[in-house]
C-alpha cells in the first residue's frame, strides 16, 4: 500500500501541472480572441476584392497567366499547421489528411510547402520533397508574412516550377469545431459570379482591364494565403483551449482520486495504530 508521504507528493505534483494547463488555457483564450478580431478585420477587404474581381472577370474576355489552367499535373501543396504542440489532435488530423492526399496520386510528384514547425518536421521525416519551409510564421502572423509567401508562390507558378498550387489548412468554425479545408491557390479560380449590382453597365477601366487584372490577381493570392493563416491560427488556439480545458478537468479528477486514496490510507494507518494500542493494553491486563 502506498504511504501517505508519497501520496501527498503526487497530489502536489498534479496540482502543479493543473496550474500550468489552466494558465495555458487562459493564454490560448486571449490569443484566440485576438485571432478572431484579426479574421473579422480582414474580412471586408477579402470580400470586396473577390466581388471586384468577379465582376472584372465576368466583364472582360482578357485572360492572364495566373488564371490559366495548365496541362501539367505537377503541384505544390501548402500545409499549414501550428508551431507549437499541446493542442490535441489539431495537427495530427490535418497532417494525416495531407499525407493521404499526397499519396493518392492526384498530382504528379507533388512538392510540399510546410508552414508551421509541426508540418516542417512531419514532412522532412516523411521524406517528401520540400519547396520552402516556413518555421516561425504561425507564432506571429503579419500581413507582410502573408505577402512574402504569396509572392514566392506566384514566382514559382510563373516560372513553371508548379502547375497547380493548393493549400490545406484548418478553418475556424467555433470553439469546438474546425474543418480541414483544401483550396486551390493557383491558377486563381475566379470567384463565383456574385450577382453584380449593375449587370448591364459597362465599367470604365483605368488604366485598362488587362493591367488591372494583373494587379488584382496577386492581391487575391495574398488574401487567400493570409486568410488561411489567420483561420489556421484561430483554429489552433481554439483547439489548444479545448485541450487544456480537458487537461485541467482530468487533473481535477486525478486530484480527487488521490485525495480519497490519501485519506483512506491515513485512516487505515490510524485504525491500525489504535488496534495495536488496544490489543497491547489488553495483553497487559491479562
Amino acid at each position, binding site marked *: 500500500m502506498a504511504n501517505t508521504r508519497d501520496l501527498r507528493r503526487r497530489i502536489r505534483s498534479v496540482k502543479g501541472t493543473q496550474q500550468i494547463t489552466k494558465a495555458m488555457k487562459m493564454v490560448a483564450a486571449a490569443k484566440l480572441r485576438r485571432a478572431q478580431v*484579426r479574421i473579422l*478585420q*480582414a474580412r*471586408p*477587404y477579402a470580400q*470586396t*476584392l473577390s466581388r*471586384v474581381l468577379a*465582376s*472584372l472577370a465576368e466583364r472582360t474576355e482578357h485572360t492572364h497567366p495566373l488564371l490559366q489552367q495548365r496541362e501539367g499535373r505537377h503541384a505544390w501543396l501548402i500545409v499549414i499547421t501550428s508551431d507549437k504542440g499541446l493542442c490535441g489532435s489539431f495537427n495530427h488530423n490535418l497532417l494525416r489528411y495531407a499525407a493521404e492526399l499526397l499519396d493518392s496520386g492526384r498530382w504528379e510528384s507533388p512538392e510540399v510547402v510546410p508552414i508551421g514547425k509541426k508540418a516542417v518536421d512531419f514532412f522532412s521525416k516523411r521524406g517528401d520533397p520540400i519547396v520552402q519551409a516556413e518555421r516561425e510564421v504561425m507564432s506571429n502572423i503579419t*500581413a507582410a508574412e502573408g505577402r512574402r509567401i504569396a509572392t514566392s508562390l506566384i514566382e514559382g507558378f510563373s516560372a513553371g516550377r508548379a502547375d497547380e498550387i493548393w493549400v490545406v489548412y484548418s478553418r475556424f468554425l467555433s470553439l469546438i469545431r474546425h474543418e480541414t479545408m483544401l483550396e486551390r491557390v493557383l491558377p486563381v479560380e475566379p470567384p463565383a459570379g456574385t450577382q453584380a*449590382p*449593375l449587370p448591364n*453597365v*459597362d*465599367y*470604365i*477601366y*483605368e*488604366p485598362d482591364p488587362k*493591367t*488591372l487584372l494583373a*494587379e*488584382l490577381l496577386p*492581391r487575391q493570392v*495574398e*488574401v487567400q494565403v*493570409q486568410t488561411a493563416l489567420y483561420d489556421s491560427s484561430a483554429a489552433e488556439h481554439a483547439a489548444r483551449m479545448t485541450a487544456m480545458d480537458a487537461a485541467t478537468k482530468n487533473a481535477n479528477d486525478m486530484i480527487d482520486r488521490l485525495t480519497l486514496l490519501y485519506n483512506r490510507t491515513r485512516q487505515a494507518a490510524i485504525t491500525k495504530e489504535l488496534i495495536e494500542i488496544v490489543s497491547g493494553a489488553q495483553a497487559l491486563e491479562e
Partner: protein
Amino acid sequence: MSGPLHLEVVTQSRRLLDLDVDEVQLPGTLGALGVLPGHTPLLTSLGIGELMYRTDHRESYLAIQWGFAEVLPDRVTVLAAVAETPEEIDVTEAEKEKEEAEAALKTVDMVELEKMRAKLQMAITRLQVARHRRA
C-alpha cells in the same frame, strides 16, 4: 444630383471608413479624379496620394498608397494597401523618410530609383495629409 454617395475604405487589416459622403477625390494612377454621386461605373488602380472626401462642406483626408477603387453611381469602394488618417501619421517619421529618400535619389541606381521615388512621394503625401489634422 442623385442620392448620397457611400464611401468605404478598407485595407487588408481593417475597415477604415464606412460612411455617406457628398464627394470623393481619388489619387488614380492616371491622375487625380473626383467622384460625385451618379458617376459612371469605373474601376481604377490607385497610386500614392491623398484621398479627400467631403461631408457637409467638411473635407477630410487620408493618405493612400497603392490599391484599387470601384466606383458605382451610389458607392465608392477603395481597397488600399496602406491607408492612414491624419491623426495616425507620425510627422517626424515622415520627414525623416522624406530626407532619406531625397538623399538616396541622388546616388541610387535604376533598380532602386522607382522604389525611392515611391518612398519620397509617400512621405510627401503623409506630410500633406498630416497638415489637415484637426485641432
